């Protein structure tokens, strides 16, 4: 079962590599994505027992991330059929292979309990995404790729040394040396605080870089801005969650080793800082894809703060994994359509999208409303849970900063998004071949529907899953 989840996409990658026709590849891609989702759902319903001596173990946390990733990936794959049709000018072999490899690695991250293996998988996702960012093959995209790759690699390298510290801590503590999460949690008490502290710092910075917490987020706007819409969707809706899952693992460990206070405070500080940075940079943003990148910075910040707050906020964080992922999908895919249609990402040129692209424009608008935490959409549930638990815990200052930056972000985003979608299309704007079609509008529409439904009604099984996951992250006295 576990193997299928990993191998299947790899087979897919191999197949797409063999296929010579550009038109066929995206369909094959979606086929494999669909199979992957099927397996995922099967695994969610009938949880397989942990195998390979605890190396593979699909727990509630993994399930959530796996589910959101798989759904998002399928939608992006289907979207790619319509989207790549407009990018006929260049071969899509690389992008299809990269996507599938990334999918395989992503699944590996979610199902393994061995930190080392998880690290390897994470690194693989980083690398496999690089050529996708370079899809446009121009100076800007190579620069974006370069920054993405170097910064993320440095980050992941730091994470690696963090893991080494952890491992060494086990050796020093004379317990059976291992990087299996369960063993570590078991022996957590014995580990020497010096090494553990150092490990946490390096892991936080490392995974934080991959996740894009400020001030480690510097690669994000460039990468998201230059990558095609669907890659952006996967980066901000998928990879971010994987990195967050890695942080969750560390958090679990931190819970076990009574070092939790420091870790939580660090998370809160970095999270709030990310939100403030996002607020500052979203105002007066002239490039709507970069704006979405900062929105992603904001939301990793939200998740970090929630994790740091603990208690009921953790539930919010976990639900936000899903909510943020899906909503970001809507935003990036629809923004991709708008980009295609106007052939520009500049908010000065894009005007009256609702007139030119009623569907994509409407989706973009709805996505904006959803991502800024307005009901009746899913992000509201998570964000309100977090805010309220901040205030209920009596941590007014945190709540205040959180809320103020949310408001500023809303204003900044509104001032960027509303002029884009409303009004008349400027007479001098470039006309392109792009038209809204079911292929390019359907997938984000489906995502939006999910976001909406989750905003008013959480299915019981999902609810159970979320509360199980939250239980894993509670402080054990």
């Amino acid at each position, binding site marked *: 079962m576990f193997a299928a989840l990993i191998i299947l996409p790899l087979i897919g990658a191999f197949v797409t590599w063999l296929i010579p026709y550009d038109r066929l590849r995206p369909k094959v891609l979606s086929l494999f994505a669909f199979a992957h989702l099927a397996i995922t759902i099967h695994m969610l319903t009938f949880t397989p027992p942990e195998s390979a001596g605890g190396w593979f173990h699909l727990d509630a946390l993994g399930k959530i991330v796996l589910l959101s990733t798989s759904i998002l990936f399928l939608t992006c794959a289907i979207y790619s059929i319509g989207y790549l049709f407009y990018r006929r000018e260049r071969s899509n072999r690389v992008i299809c292979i990269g996507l599938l490899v990334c999918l395989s690695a992503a699944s590996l991250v979610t199902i393994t309990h061995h930190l*080392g293996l998880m*690290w*390897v998988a994470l*690194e*693989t996702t980083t*690398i496999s995404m*690089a050529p996708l960012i*370079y899809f446009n093959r*121009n*100076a*800007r995209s*190579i*620069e*974006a*790729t*370069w*920054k993405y*790759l*170097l910064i993320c*690699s*440095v980050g*992941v*390298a730091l994470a*690696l*040394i963090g*893991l*080494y*510290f952890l*491992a*060494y801590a*086990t*050796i*020093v503590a004379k317990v059976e*040396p*291992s*990087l299996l999460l369960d063993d570590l949690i078991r022996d957590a008490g014995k580990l*020497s605080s*010096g*090494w553990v502290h*150092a490990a946490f710092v390096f892991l936080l910075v490392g995974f934080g870089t991959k996740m894009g917490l400020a001030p480690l987020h510097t690669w994000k*706007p*460039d990468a998201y*801005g*230059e990558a095609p819409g669907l890659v952006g969707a996967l980066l901000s809706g998928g990879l971010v969650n994987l990195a967050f899952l890695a942080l969750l693992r560390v958090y679990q460990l931190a819970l076990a080793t009574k070092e939790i206070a420091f870790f939580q405070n660090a998370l809160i500080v970095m999270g709030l800082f990310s939100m403030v940075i996002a607020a500052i*940079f979203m105002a007066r943003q*002239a490039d709507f894809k*970069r704006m979405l990148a900062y929105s992603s910075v904001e939301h990793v910040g939200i998740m970090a703060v929630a994790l740091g707050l603990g208690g009921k906020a953790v539930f919010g964080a976990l639900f936000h994994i899903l909510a943020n992922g899906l909503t970001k999908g809507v935003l990036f895919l629809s923004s991709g359509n708008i980009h295609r249609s106007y052939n520009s990402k500049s908010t000065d040129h894009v005007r009256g999208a609702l007139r030119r692209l009623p569907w994509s424009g409407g989706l973009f608008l709805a996505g904006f409303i959803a991502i800024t935490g307005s009901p009746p959409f899913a992000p509201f549930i998570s964000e309100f849970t977090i805010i309220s638990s901040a205030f209920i815990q009596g941590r007014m200052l945190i709540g205040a900063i959180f809320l103020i930056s949310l408001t500023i972000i809303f204003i900044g985003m509104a001032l960027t998004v509303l002029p884009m979608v409303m009004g008349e299309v400027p007479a001098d704007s470039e006309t392109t071949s792009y038209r809204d079609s079911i292929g390019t509008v359907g997938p984000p529409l489906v995502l939006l529907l999910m976001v909406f439904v989750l905003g008013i009604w959480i299915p019981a099984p999902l609810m159970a899953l979320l509360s199980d996951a939250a239980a894993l992250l509670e402080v054990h006295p």
Partner: protein
Amino acid sequence: MITLADQLLVLVLLINFISLGTSRLIFSIRSVAVQGVILGILPGLIHPFSWHLVAITIVIIAVKGFVIPQLLGRAVRSAEIKREVEPFLGFVPTLLLGAVFTALSFGFAGRLPMLPEHQNYMFVPASIATLMTGFLILTTRRKAISQVIGYLVLENGIFIFGLLLAEAMPIMVEAGALLDLLVGIFVMGIVINQISREFSSLDTSLLTSLKEE
């Protein structure tokens, strides 16, 4: 045997300073290559002989010592750049900072508990010092190629620490090391050459069109 390893580590530290101090790119590439070779030898010195070990050693020496330097060298030659002119921070200050960081890392290592058998060897301080050096290069040099060098030094630092764990969890260490190498090759081999094709130069100060106005 292991004392020899210690002396080699001193050599590694020296090479750090060289790569910090020199402005000639080719030279610093070579020095990093040497560092790589030394690191390749180290496991052989501290672990009992095994074919597995031999294989690892060979791979590491091959990649760190020859493949990557070759790639970098070609990139440098194709872009026709000889030296790192006007670094973000001058060479002397960087050297001083390097010294400070090395000292700091010794202090830091001192405060951490060790296994008795590692107690009086300088694996930990050396690795952290190398790590810091890598960071120092990354933050003070403008040229893409020097940043790659910085990244390699960083990796070497991590690798040194990995030696401590090699017998505890060999697969882990090797996986990590090899994957880092992969990244290295990936970054150098493809991106660098793409860059030099796009910009006919490896100056990252050219790679600054993506920013907020």
